[in-house]
Structure formats: structure tokens, C-alpha cells
């Protein structure tokens, strides 16, 4: 799978934390109508004592407003959720998640932040690339993409 193909499925979005909130981020840059304008970051669900959960880094949650259009609005009453997992080979990234396996969708979300998500993060959405075979390729593409991007 070459970079040109991965590029066609890539949608970059930037979220910035709203002042005075614990983990509420708003879309500041990127295409509207993909993920909700507001996304929260943090593990709010009751934690299970499983080995798998120890690898979990975070969770993203968001709900589309009534007037808002979105790629996943028809699923789960407009609520978007994904766990974020670390990927050891690409430690510069905050983690990755998949939206939304419950609905047989495999859109890969890779999160990148220069400030460990304390004030902002980038969400890189790769449509249809949430299958194990493609995840590493998307990470590799993104590493090159971020290196080439003017800082």
C-alpha cells in the first residue's frame, strides 16, 4: 500500500482545549462534519481490572449537536467513542483507536500532540484503515507526514 493511497483516506483535524475545562477540546482546524466539534478526553468509564485495560492510554468521547452534521452521526445516537491505545514502535504518537468496530466500521484514529494533550492534539483519521494489517502502514505514513510538515 503506497503513501498516495493512504493519503486519499487521511483526514487531519486539530482540537484545542477550552480554557477552564478538565478535558474538553474543540475543533480548531480541519474539515468540519467529520468528528463532533467538541471532544472530551479522559477515562470516565468504570475501570476493569483486566490486563488489556492496563494498555489503554485514554478515551475520546464526543456527541454531535442536533444541528451538526457528521460522518458518524447516524451511529449510536450521534455519540462517538474510542479507546486510545499506545503503539510501542511509534512512541511519538499519543495513541490510536478505531471508530467504530461495534458498527463494523474500521476507521483508524491516530492522535498526535506536542504537549501530551494538555492543551491541544491532532486527530488523524484514516478511513477504512483500522484493520491490523493497515495500522502500522498508517503510522509509518504519518511519521513521514509529520516530519515533512513545517513546524
Amino acid at each position, binding site marked *: *500500500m*503506497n503513501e*498516495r*493511497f493512504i493519503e*486519499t*483516506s487521511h483526514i487531519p483535524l486539530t482540537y484545542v482545549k477550552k480554557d477552564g475545562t478538565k478535558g474538553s477540546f474543540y475543533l480548531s482546524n480541519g474539515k468540519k462534519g467529520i468528528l463532533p466539534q467538541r471532544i472530551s478526553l479522559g477515562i470516565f468509564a468504570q475501570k476493569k481490572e483486566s490486563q488489556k485495560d492496563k494498555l489503554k492510554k485514554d478515551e475520546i468521547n464526543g456527541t454531535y449537536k442536533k444541528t451538526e452534521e457528521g460522518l458518524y452521526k447516524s451511529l449510536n445516537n450521534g455519540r462517538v467513542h474510542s479507546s486510545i491505545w499506545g503503539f510501542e514502535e511509534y512512541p511519538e504518537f499519543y495513541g490510536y483507536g478505531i471508530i467504530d468496530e461495534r458498527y*463494523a*466500521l*474500521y476507521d483508524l484514529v491516530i492522535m498526535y500532540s506536542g504537549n501530551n494533550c494538555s492543551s491541544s492534539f491532532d486527530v488523524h483519521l484514516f*478511513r*477504512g*484503515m483500522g*484493520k491490523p*494489517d*493497515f495500522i502500522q502502514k498508517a503510522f509509518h505514513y504519518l511519521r513521514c507526514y509529520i516530519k515533512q510538515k513545517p513546524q
Partner: protein
Amino acid sequence: MKGLQGYSMNLDYIDISKFLDKDRICLDYLQRNAIYDGAEMYYFNGCRKIEVWMRQATNQVNIKGSIPYFINGHNFYASHQDWLEGLDYIQGCLNVNIYSGQVNSFEFGTIQEIPFPEPDFLNHHIKVRGMEARAYHKGQVLTGREFVSPSLKIKLYDVQRNIKTKLDKPIRADLSRDYGWDSRKHYIKLENHYRQPEAYFKGNVQLSELLSSSFQQDLKKGLLTSYQSIMKTGTTAIPKSKADINAGTIPLMILKELEGLYDFNTEELIKGKLKEIPEDVFSPDDRKARLRTIRDNLKKISQQGGSRYDIAELLQARLEA
């Protein structure tokens, strides 16, 4: 050294159909285009589009397009791995096992560098016994030939022109880097378009079967056989001396080359034509004089074994690569 030698022959366009039974297809990744004759047409966006047709009446989905174009943005070459990745991506998005789908038609071909200008090469590939021959021109220039039967179409065309006119500059740069493509060289594409695989292979062909190494090997041999079945001109040796090539020699060279293809004798035809000319125009001496000149010209032309435009050996080398 970079070059095409390491890259073999590969599949290109494909049309797959799959009966859905109780399975539900996922349309979330598709862009709806239109409805034609009871079928809904969608697009799958990649480097190039793939068409997905939903036929509710027969509960069938059709996937049509070039996987190499979809996954790489060009069809210069696509590896088996490229194919698997492209198909895995599509079936992952559609939630349908397309490997068990039936292949309705497909193309299998290769790009070959040739030591002649493409129009010259095409001009010397004339016909295939039992197949309809078609020629394609751009202005006055011959750009492609097709030999068509109900189940198979052999395509031979100037791929260099396509690369230069249809592909973007960054992709052309990739072709140079990855496959040694050179804009100053000459390339043709030879393709077998299996229009009715079920008739040609005497049974339905499943996608998984098509991708198997034994089937691929058969397709490679089939491509070479197709090329060998094309009758070629270019069997006369061009005289070394300029004095031996006059205005009368050139049409005779062409006629001599066509003898083998169309089963006639040049000299007999000319004699017959001379006899048709009334005696008040041509006296018997005039006739003899003309015939003598023609015979002199024919002596200047010698026939060689095969056509110098025959690239079967180059293709054979690719097959063994």
C-alpha cells in the same frame, strides 16, 4: 540497473460479482453516484475510483475497476501484495468476502520496452487468425490494435503515450524511481482481456482462484501465446544500398510481407494486372519491359525468417523473470 526485467506480468482491470444472500453490505465508505436500470452505482475513492454496483433485484454487488489504479494511481505494475492489500481494504470496508466472488471479466498484461517507435511496432502487428482486428488512431498516428473474439480481446497499445498524457508528474517520477521508466524510450502494453472467463476457462472463475500462483502462471503463458498468435510483418530485409531502394521497390516490399498473411503471390498478382491493361495502352513489349523492371526490383528484396518487430523473446524473458 533499474529496468522492467524484475517486474513481471500482472492483473489490471477486473469485474467481480458477489451474491449477498443474507449478508449486509456496508455502504458507509461509498459515494453514491446514480441509478441505472435498477442498479445503484457507487464510487469507492482511492488513488482512482472503483465502481460498486448494487443490484437489489438479484441481491448482487458488482465491483469494477483497476485495482492497480485504485491502490497505486497507475497500472504500470502492481505486485501480488498490492492486489491483496487493495482487495483486503475493499472487502474490509464493504464487509463482504469478495475473494469468493465470481470474476466476470479481467485483464492480464505487461508493459514491455521495445527498441522501435511505438507506431512502427504497431503497424507491423496485423491480425490474429479467427479474430476481428481493430486499429486505433490519434490523428494520423496508430496508437493501438485490438484483436477480438467473443471470449478474449488481445490489446496492444502505445502505453508511453498514456503515461505521458494520463499520469501526473509525481506519479511519473515514481515510475522512473521504482521501475526505471524513461520518457525517451519506447514502451507498449500487451494485454489479454478475458471478456468471458467462464467460457474461456470452461467454468466459473472465483477471485481466490484467479489470484493463485498456478492460475497466474497459466495467464502468463496465455499472454505469450496471444502475442505469438499475432501475425507480424517486417520479414523483408531492407536493402543496404540506397540505389537498391527506388519508388518501385517500396510497395513491393510491403506486398512481399503481406504474402504470408493473406496467401497470395506478388509476382502472379502483378502479371495478372498487367494482362488486364488493354493492348492499345500497353503493347506486348511494353508489358515485358515493365515486368522485367518489377522482377529486377523483386530481386533486390530478400526475405528473412521472422519479423524484426517480433518481441516474443523479450516477453519470454519476462515470463521467466
